[in-house]
């Protein structure tokens, strides 16, 4: 859409929302939120940007085809589920660092799992909406 207002707003919203999405991702384990909703918000940030600036600009911003984000995310989740196998624990077992670190809190494999979900959902939503808007 050719409007300065939206363009400007979206340019400011983009980093803000990305930040927000990571916030939502990190707090998911203790409060409402998590990888799914976080990824969705990140995607919405880019989608807003795309609505305002046109798809091509946003694609340039993302640098890779959103389709490639999906296997990346899946790989992250998958690996984080596989890691416990190394220490002879079953698939998907939560592995935790012994001490919590500041800001993020307990670091564990489930966090990476959620991160994978985040990335996947980001890729999925972008792929779907971009494809549809391109064809629309």
């Amino acid at each position, binding site marked *: 859409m050719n409007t300065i207002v939206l363009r400007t707003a979206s340019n400011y919203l983009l980093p803000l929302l990305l930040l927000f999405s990571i916030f939502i991702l990190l707090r998911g384990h203790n409060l409402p939120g*998590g990888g799914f909703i976080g990824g969705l918000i990140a995607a919405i940030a880019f989608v807003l940007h795309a609505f305002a600036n046109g798809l091509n600009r946003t694609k340039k911003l993302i640098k890779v085809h959103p389709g490639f984000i999906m296997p990346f995310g899946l790989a992250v989740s998958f690996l984080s*589920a596989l890691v416990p196998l190394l220490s002879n624990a079953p698939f998907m077992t939560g592995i935790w660092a012994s001490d919590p670190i500041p800001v993020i809190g307990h670091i*564990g494999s489930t966090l990476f799992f959620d991160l994978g979900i985040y990335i996947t959902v980001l890729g*999925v939503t972008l792929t779907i909406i971009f494809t549809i808007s391109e064809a629309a």
Partner: protein
Amino acid sequence: MLGAILTGVIFALVLVFFGRFLKRRLAILFAAVPLGLFLYFSQYIKPIANGDIITQSVSWLPSFGINLDFTLDGLSLMFSLLITGIGFLVFLYASEYLKGHQYLDRFYGYLGLFMAAMLGVVLSDNVVTLFLFWEITSISSFFLIGFNNNDKASRKSAITALSLTGFGGVLFLGFSLILGSIAGTYSITEMLNAKELIVQSDYYIPIIILLFGAAFTKSAQFPFHFWLPGAMRAPTPVSTYLHSATMVKAGVYLLMRFTPVLGGPDSWHYTLLAVGGVTMVYAAVQIVSKTDLKAILAYSTISALGVMIFLTGLGTNKAILAASVFILVHALYKATLFLITGIIDHKTHTRDIRKLSGLRKVMLPIAIIGLLAALSNGGVPPTFGFLGKDLIYEAALESERWNWLLTGASVFTNILLFYGGFQVGVKPFIGDLPAKYEKITMPKPQLWIPPAILALLSIVIGIFPLLIQDSLVVPTLNALHVLEDELHLKLWHGFNLVLGLSMLTILIGLLIYFKMQPSDKRTALFTKYEPLSPKAVILKGGFYFKKFSFKWTNFFQNGYLRNYINTILLFLVFLLGFLLISHIQLKMNFDAMTDITFPELATLIILIISVLFAVITQSRLAAVAALGIVGLSISLIFLFYSAPDLAMTQFSIDTLTMILFVLVLYRLPKYLNLTNPRNRIKDVIIATTFGTLIALLALEVWQVTNNNEVSRFYAEHAYTLAKGKNVVNVILVDFRGIDTLMESVVLTVAAIGVFSLLKLRLHQKD
């Protein structure tokens, strides 16, 4: 014995792979296989005549109770010798008959497979293995009938034959398994001990119906006989081997084999008598309308098979004796007749008896062979045929009931059989030789020696019946548990009624042969009644069945999605309603329900109205917008009941869906075509019923209190064990993390789907 069968199978397999190289020159050597097997079985003649029974058991499928049990007793031996002996002659004959044929290797392959399967049928002591071989005979017959597969009629005949024998096969399957279950064993020998149990079981009638169905279709009994004339499309060696000498007798074999197990009750005897009787008379009458050599032979074969079934049905010792002997008699003369028909066909390229005459002038030896076969066929002394016919008359006369009727029928049949035999074996050779046949020369020895051997056997055994009496006939009777005290097969019994009937048969036969030349008028008369024939009736039935199939299939699969949904739904609503009404006490426990507050009520009302609005509105966009409100209301409900994660996700997803909808909608047309009002009312009724049932079910289930020990565990240990305070999220990423991982896979796949649906354009059509 397994070796014998495997030899045939291996022979067929070898041909599949190497046949191409062998078929040119060495086809004659293929005959060594049946010959070898014939010699193999011959060595058992003596032991079995001495009362031995050769058995072999190879463990195969113990967990099914199915083993490769083989028994070689008199009956099996007789059939085995027939199969391999005639097989040898046919293999020999075919090497010349189909010389240079493009697919000769396949032909021998099928033939070899058939021979193996047929041996399996007669040797098996296990009823399921018997069925197995039985089916293979049908299949190889299918391939052989359709051998000239560029000919549409051949293909059709093959399918008809397979349909009927396959139908019989299916009945046999039912028969063997039910019988096996009732008897508690699949072994036929062991079933003899369970005879009482079987005959008195509730399943006796179904069992024999299935058995009869199997036997009658295979042995071409009325009204299933019509596949056999059609099967004459097969090359003549096939007709000789399968459709006269061996396969068609499998039904008779089966009935004889099971007589000791199942025979006895009236239902058994009278059915066989009736079907056999009708078949023999009906087919015999048909002979007079036929002008094609093979058609005549086909009907006379059917008739002869009828005679065998008839005799089996009579079931007296005499009758069984007659049947056993007649099987041999028939095999010998009918095979001869077929083989010389083949020679005639080969040389003159016609089988129309009206066009054939005087061939003795160019092929005298063949004419003599034909005459001998016709004589045996007509029961003229001193041929083997005479012996056989005498036994039939004797058996018929001794019948306890209706003996005159039965004898009359036998005589009548034999007269017409006599006629048919002379039409084939004599007529083409007498009279004047048409000019166009003058160049005909004698065929190669491979073609005439086999029929010559068979014809000679008919005479030799006729004169010296003792050749087979103790070696084959008595063991056969023993195998069938028929104890003929003093059996003396002989030509001359003195002047008695039987002899009189024989002479009468021959006289009238000759009379008809000379007086009743084939005429178009008679053929036309039969054609007129063709629509009433079993063939026409059954084919018509098939036609209507197909029509019904169309109706049935198109009724359900009519292309309209709404009908599919409706059908499933009706089915569901019917059963669900039935169960709900019959089992559920509709008592509500209102006290246990939580109170409703104004915001909740308002949210629910907005939800309800927006759902209705989405349903009713004619604007697609408005409907989609209403969906957005539905999503919003639902997420508020989730929130009211303390499910923030849910509220969040529900809202995001519904909005996203709405957005996708909106992005996609804009090129679509308006709702142009509406369902008609009657359908709409119907839909409202069914949808409401379904919704009501679900609501009732929900209330009913809600009242059942469950014990959520798992959720209690989560509540207590989410933090201590999984280090997360948002229990819902802990479930998602830890307790039930697999669900979530796979859910993200689902999303990925959906995204790929969206991408490919919109972006993929095929460059190459398929």
